[in-house]
């Protein structure tokens, strides 16, 4: 089944075949790779591609279909979704528009909640402040809209990926003609 990979905003069409156990053929767009695959310990891959050897750590993240890949010290965050699923998703939500479910980017304590349901917020407006390891981090609204709900509570700890609040897009009474 084909996948759509997204990394740093760029998307690539991906196909995977496994002609023999441990032997993969992976195509990225028009580039094709023969891969000798081994997983010596869970989530640690040893890949040999045309003689080149790579030690790769691949871990699923708390975001569905998203993987954290560690190679020679660099971390790559890659979304790998089945093509049909992706198409569906795109229809429902065009980029940073539509309903925004804001999730916590890290574990920490909710230091301040600056909005409440019903508030009108502008794009980039600070909604709440998270604190971890003595550092304060602002969570901003990606769109202009109305706060639909606030899950975060001041002084309460959250884990990475926990929902913080929801912002509904702003619809003016009279749609701009």
């Amino acid at each position, binding site marked *: *089944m084909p*996948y759509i*990979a997204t*990394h740093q905003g760029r998307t690539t069409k*991906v196909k*995977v075949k*496994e002609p*023999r*156990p*441990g*032997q*993969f053929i*992976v195509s*990225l767009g028009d*580039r094709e*790779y*023969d*891969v*000798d*695959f*081994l*997983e*010596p*310990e*869970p*989530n*640690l*891959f040893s*890949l040999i*591609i045309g*003689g080149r050897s*790579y030690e*790769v*750590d*691949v*871990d*699923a993240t708390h975001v569905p*279909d998203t*993987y954290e*890949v*560690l*190679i*020679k*010290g*660099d*971390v*790559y965050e*890659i979304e*790998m979704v*089945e093509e049909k699923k992706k198409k569906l998703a795109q229809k429902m939500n065009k980029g940073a528009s539509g309903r925004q479910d804001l999730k916590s*980017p*890290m*574990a*920490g*304590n909710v230091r301040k909640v600056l909005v409440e349901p019903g508030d009108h917020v502008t794009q980039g407006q600070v909604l709440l402040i998270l604190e*971890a*390891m*003595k*550092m304060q*981090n602002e969570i901003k609204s990606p769109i202009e809209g109305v706060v639909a709900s606030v899950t975060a509570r001041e002084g309460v700890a959250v884990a990475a990926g926990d929902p913080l609040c929801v912002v509904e897009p702003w619809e003016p009474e009279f749609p701009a003609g």
Partner: protein
Amino acid sequence: MFKKILIANRGEITIRVIRACKELGVPTVAVYSEADRTALHVRAADEAYCIGPAPSRESYLRGDRILEVAKAAGADAIHPGYGFLSENAEFAEACAAAGITFIGPNPRAIRVMGNKTTSRVAVFEMGVPLVPGMRENLQSEDQAVEWARKIGYPIMMKAAAGGGGKGLRMIMREEELLPAYRTAKSESLAAFGDDAVYMERYIENPRHIEIQVLGDRHGNIIYCPERECSIQRRHQKVIEEAPSPIVDEEMRRAMGEAAIRAARAVDYDSAGTVEFIVSGKSREFFFLEMNTRLQVEHPITEMITGIDLCKEMIRSAAGYVLPFRQEDVQCHGHALECRIYAEDPDNRFLPTPGRIIGLRVPGGPWVRDESGMYEGLDVPIHYDPMLSKLVVWGSTRERMVTRMLRALSEYKVKGIKTTIPFHARVLKNEKFLAGEIDTNFIDREFQPQDEARVKPFEDVALVAAAIKAYRQDKARALAGVGASTGGSSDASLWKRSGRLKRDPGF
């Protein structure tokens, strides 16, 4: 030697002290907050006691509780590590009062050096250079000229009400002095409603260079070759090396002797560090402060001198005489330390607490890992984000750097983001390799580079992620019959396909 030592700290430094005690044959007592029951130091010590809830002020800063634990456990000495109670004179006195040895300097040294003013007065009397400048405000233009000559150019004119660059004026030579004085005054008046200004020497390409000293209870004190700690982020040291690329034998001796004078000013009798600000331009050095504790970056000094600072600090607290003299202290090769923080270098260095789900530590020649990490550790959100220190030694500065790059490439921390990849980029920076660094190095060279960066193995990453997704989907399809359980199953899969393997090129 002591019968039993309590370490009033957490994290890597506690592990460091426990290791030194083990090697000295002294049993150890760990204390931990409720958030740290899972911490490595709890398991590493011979004994461990909970001293309260997660917040430091309710646990690691509770000197009273810690002393009670020490008494109850029969410890006759307390090592404070760094941070927390390490530079708290009252705690040091409380230990003494309880008949327990505080492994650190005498309380007076802590108190005097702990205060900016008293420390400067103390060391100035001993002839240790301070940044030249006025301690009061300018009254007149004549006074300005007179003071400017005393201070020496370049000079920084500063608004007394100060802040935000307003009323700051740099003055390179005397002609510029009076005009600058007038503008500074009017700017400052406009900005703060107060035209008071004063002058200080401007330090060009400021570098942070410090001298490790080591004293015993018998009046002996020695200094070690310097450490340079100019690679900083938000005034937080990130990379340290020893010796400094700009310090030669003569300068080393001059700084070392100044450090000894500063230490003598407070009868220093333990391990400590005298910090200097050094002009990268003129190579003049000026006293900043003295840290009356064992410092985070002490290992690089250990690597070039062969002196076990942590062990000697404990021995001298136990009353032993230093086992070597100044002339025995050598400077052999180069050492480098990278501080590994739980921060995401690709996302504004946001802290990244969480669970370490995988850990592989670098090894091999002249690589030293000073860590509080283990696989399975939940990095708590309550404390400093430093996870470990990676230290290497090399016979030359170049070998030191290439070795660190090699070691960083072996260091795998999974589950949370760390600053490991950031270190690798700093170490590949031309200016760093040339030793042309100062305390603004990272802000100047890095924030931009970080955003723009292209990662070299994107295709391999995509291939890996694709195979991962494919195998997961397949496993689901097979209703999870083992295909994704990794290790064993794949190994055996491979064994079966072993003989079918593509011939590698002949």
